[in-house]
């Protein structure tokens, strides 16, 4: 589904990511773990095309998308949930979801029903300005916005960051379920141990801009993970 080969990204001459090799199969839920500042968000941004790699390639669904513009990647079926949610604050909830409709242009049916089923609050608050909702609600909206277009691949950037625990619980329960239901592939970056354990089938550990280890589902113990995370 998604393959990165020798991916190198940087500002100026200092690379932030070096030689990233990574692979996600269709239907998998894969995590990328690491401490603050190791390059997790940079990885996500280069996968959606907001940052241009200086070297290496990204292959998605059998085609090379390294040079594809961001919006074309979305239309090809990559849904993205940015790190700090980044909902459009002055648009209403409903309008935010509408913007997400352009994700995955191959899909005929939009997933409003599914979104409202998992996150009923989005239907209740349809006409509220997104900027006036709480962090957790905004996270649900960001997820809903990426979901309505029924993407084939969902990229999640630290879904648990700055959100009340009950909603984190809900998200870590819902995402794998949605992935199962829809056959959706998920790649997420995270440093919350609980979320990683709850969601990943396997994960990559990243340190100072490069992948240092790959952990199977049996390796996701507190002790193993702790060496890669700031716990």
């Amino acid at each position: 589904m998604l393959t990165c080969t020798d991916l190198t990204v940087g500002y100026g001459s200092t690379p932030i990511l070096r030689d990233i090799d990574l692979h996600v199969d269709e239907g998998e839920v894969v995590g990328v773990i690491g401490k603050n500042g190791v390059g997790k968000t940079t990885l996500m941004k280069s996968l959606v095309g907001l940052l241009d790699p200086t070297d290496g390639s990204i292959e998605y669904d059998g085609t090379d998308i390294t040079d594809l513009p961001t919006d074309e990647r979305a239309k090809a079926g990559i849904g993205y949930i940015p790190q700090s949610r980044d909902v459009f604050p002055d648009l209403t909830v409903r309008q935010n979801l509408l913007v997400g409709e352009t994700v995955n242009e191959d899909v005929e049916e939009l997933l409003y029903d599914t979104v409202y089923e998992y996150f009923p609050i989005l239907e209740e608050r349809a006409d509220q300005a997104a900027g006036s909702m709480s962090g957790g609600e905004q996270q649900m909206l960001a997820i809903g916005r990426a979901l309505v277009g029924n993407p084939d691949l969902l990229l999640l950037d630290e879904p648990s960051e700055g959100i009340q625990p009950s909603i984190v619980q809900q998200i870590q329960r819902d995402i794998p379920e949605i992935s199962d239901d829809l056959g959706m592939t998920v790649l997420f970056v995270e440093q919350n141990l609980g979320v990683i354990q709850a969601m990943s089938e396997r994960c990559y550990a990243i340190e100072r801009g490069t992948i240092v280890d790959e952990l199977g589902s049996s390796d996701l113990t507190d002790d193993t993970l702790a060496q890669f995370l700031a716990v």
Partner: protein
Amino acid sequence: MVNGINLFFQFLDSFGFIVLAAIGLAVIFGMMGVINLAHGELIMIGAYGTTLVANAGAPLVLAMAAGVLAAAVAGLIIERTIVKRLYHRPLDSMVATWALGLALTQVVRIIFGNSLSGIGLPFGAIRFGAFSYSMYRTVLSVVALALLVGAYLVFTRTEFGIRARATIQDADTARAMGVDTDRMYTSTFVIGCALAGLTGALYAPALSIVPGMGSTFLVEAFVAVVTGGTSVLLGTTLAAGVLGSADALFTNLYGTFIGQVAMLILAILILRFLPTGLSGALEDLRERIGGEN
């Protein structure tokens, strides 16, 4: 002495003029953060298009459509070749559009000479007792209001408008949602230019058609955009209402000069005491009232 009917018609005139002067500029500035100093020249292009086509014998409405089209095409070319490269450099975009306006005015002068023969004002007059008013200019204020409502609906009710606003608020995220933000910018800029063209088209029968005619609109346009504040369309409406009232009232009482001065002084006061402009102040007020309930 204040005559109520006179005052009303003068207010309509003022309101229409301010709205039409500002709306194209407001859309481009408010949605894209670009200060388009070639705004006046786009108005001029709209007026020239209209006048040339009308002088060739076409009906006025068709001529106006041609004027709008001319400005829109000019806008498209300007966006693709110049403004596109300057989205992250607002000051440079000011310099570039100023330079463009300078060149455009002179190019039009070289091609079409120092003036075009005008087209008469249609519709005739409305009479109340000893007083009469140009029907056409009264119609313009209605058109201005309709434009505001139309633009409001486009930017809040249509998919295009919502995507355009999403692009303005967070271009990266919008792009990641599959929005072709380049096209949104282009479309928004072209719409702004088309609106400027429409202003030129509508005022073509009422003004002298000369290459520098666009500058007539600049003061009102900028003052309205600045005092209107963050929320573009609401801001333009409020600014035109408030400034138009001041202009009409003081013009009526003390003459045109005092009318203009009153309008400008009011604008300065608004800027000082309402840093977010009229629309920002209204939103704050609404929030405060909402908060108490």
